[in-house]
């Protein structure tokens, strides 16, 4: 939409209302992740409406919401994997494109074909391909780094194992090691606890805490409400729109959860339908 004098005119005259203190309490100069008014639409139909969020530094942050609430979409929009219809995302104050090296990503385990002919070590090394550069093979140095990353998740004994011979939990740990090998400052993890065994869950939580100790920020799509309090410092409640965000103790309340899980706003669905089918009006 064009910026017109009228629009400024209307917006500027309005009294200030603060609904939530977005970023106001932050003492750090640069937030690891700043999401400003992001809307994401598939085929003109919004699946995420006007998300505003600023992540605090050095925290473990859970994104929680029902199925189809746009948790994965939010991460993908942040990483430029799906286009944003509106809004912007800043990672450490700059667009993702310029900060890629500081971001580690753990996609959903089910997003790839585990029958692919590579070993666990190969998968971990993939995290460093960008650093290795074009036309160069994976040298011993990087192989060692990949081994170390596997060691951190307790998988070094499985380095040469073909990935379809790993259990679900082991596969998840390999994915985690791939992100660790990048040595990033901000991590995004999509459902790392989905369908893993107890040992893996403990191992992942240990890693998350280690990351926090070393000042990294980790943002995790999480589906197990039972463990949110135990694992995470901050929580983002999402259901097509941002319901609430902030320290777990304050935000993870029954009232907010009811709002999150009490079904989508029917109006948003109807409106989305109208925006996808322009001729219906």
């Amino acid at each position: 939409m064009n910026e017109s004098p009228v629009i400024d005119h209307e917006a500027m005259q309005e009294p200030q209302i603060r609904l939530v203190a977005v970023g106001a309490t932050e003492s750090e100069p640069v937030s690891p992740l700043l999401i400003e008014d992001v809307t994401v639409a598939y085929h003109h139909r919004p699946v995420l409406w006007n998300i505003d969020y600023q992540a605090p530094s050095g925290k473990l942050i859970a994104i929680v919401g029902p199925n189809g609430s746009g948790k994965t979409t939010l991460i993908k929009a942040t990483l430029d994997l799906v286009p944003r219809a509106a809004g912007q995302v800043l990672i450490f104050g700059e667009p993702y494109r310029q900060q890629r090296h500081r971001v580690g990503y753990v996609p959903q385990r089910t997003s790839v074909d585990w029958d692919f002919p590579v070993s666990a070590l190969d998968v971990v090394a993939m995290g460093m391909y960008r650093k290795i550069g074009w036309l160069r093979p994976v040298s011993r140095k990087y192989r060692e780094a990949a081994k170390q990353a596997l060691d951190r998740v307790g998988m070094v004994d499985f380095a040469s194992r073909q990935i379809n011979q790993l259990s679900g939990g082991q596969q998840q740990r390999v994915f985690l090691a791939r992100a660790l090998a990048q040595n990033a400052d901000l991590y995004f993890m999509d459902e790392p606890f989905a369908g893993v065994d107890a040992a893996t869950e403990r191992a992942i939580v240990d890693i998350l805490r280690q990351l926090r100790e070393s000042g990294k920020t980790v943002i995790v799509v999480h589906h197990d409400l039972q463990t949110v309090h135990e694992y995470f410092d901050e929580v983002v409640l999402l259901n097509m729109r941002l319901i609430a965000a902030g320290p777990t103790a304050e935000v993870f309340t029954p009232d907010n959860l009811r709002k999150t899980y009490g079904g989508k706003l029917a109006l948003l669905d109807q409106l989305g339908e109208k925006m996808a089918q322009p001729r219906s009006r």
Partner: protein
Amino acid sequence: MKSVLTPLQSWASLDTWIIVIGALAAMACALPGCFLLLRRQSLMGDAISHTSLLGIVAAFFVSHWLVETNVISPATELSVRHVAMCLGAVIVGVLSAWMTESLQKFGNVESSAALGVVFTSLFALGLLLIRAVADDVHIDPDCVLYGAIEMAPLETFGTSGIPRAVVVNGVVLTINLLLTVVLFKELRLSAFDPALATTQGIPAHVMHYGLMGVTAMTLVAAFESVGSILVIAMLIIPPATAYLLTDRLPRMIGLSLLIGALSSVIGHVSALTLPPLIARSVGIPDVHDASTAGMMAAAAGFLFVTAMLLGPKYGLVSRIWHRLLLKLRIAGEDVLGGLYRFEESAPAPADLSLATERAAWLRSLTTQSWLARLATWVLLRRRWLIGSGSEVRLTDTGREAARTLVRSHRLWESFLAKHFVLGTGRFHESAEQVEHFLDRDLLAELDQDLDRPGVDPHGRAIPN
């Protein structure tokens, strides 16, 4: 124009028969094609059309061997030859479907790779065998490939004068039609949800291999007269075209039959007219026609592209057009809303300071975007605006529409404030977007959700 149609002046009954044969073959293929398309096995049909060659050659070998060992007489062999070849093709067709599935299941090979390995290997084998016996046989690979639809009408059925190919393809078409009608709901269910179909007592694998068998039979019957290119094209292109035009299966089947027949007509006519025209224009005088089979396939493709572009619901043009209309409406509504807000904030209609501001705003809007210019023009024509240039004003009807729009805007802002965690500065932009999509029902719902608010979160009155 005259020169284009010159070749058609020599139209004979031969040409009519060619069209009839092409249409019958195309329609016979379209029926199993519809279900292949819906079951996402389009390439399976393509593969079967390749492997059928092996079936034909194998049938030839077997019957030849039976003659040599005196099991049957040469006369019998001649009379059952076509049936034998058809049978061979069906067997090999089903066999190749089975081999593909087994490779997938037992060899852990991905489905398209399995299909590719099976059909190239079997086709290569067929090709090799056919070359090895080429001198003894009347079938040569070229013929199977290109077909000889131009020659097909010459071989008549008995003394009736009706070409054999018409009878063969007609019979196959009838069989397919009967099967489609009788097994319609079973076919539909097993294409849509094979698991549910199986629980309902329609075994998925029987339907699968049955369809493969019917496809193979149809293909072989059509091969002889029209060649495999046309068959590959007619199997999937007409059903896909129909699929773009309708959402209902019976209508899709009907349309695909129609499109198949139409491709035959367009194909033959253009085979006679287009090539000499184009060839002459680039300076190649000695070309009079092109392969009818090839042109029929091209005609089907042409119809597909047409449907893809111009289809009423899913066509690209209609989608772009509707998006454009939407943009125009949004631009017009932006003009209306802006004018309304000026009126609203002016202390008196004659206030001069705001009039200059408004004129400046309108000017910048219409110089920046051609859509706004066009929209203003449309609004003037509809008498929602009067005046000209930057001196336009709202009429009563226009004001009514503008009020609804501003109401939508402010109600949405209130809605955002109630349900969203969002910095205040951002309400406006979201409302600018959404206001255009709120119809009466949604507005009523918003109003109710917000308990009929009088003012928006900025404290401005929400018009009624």
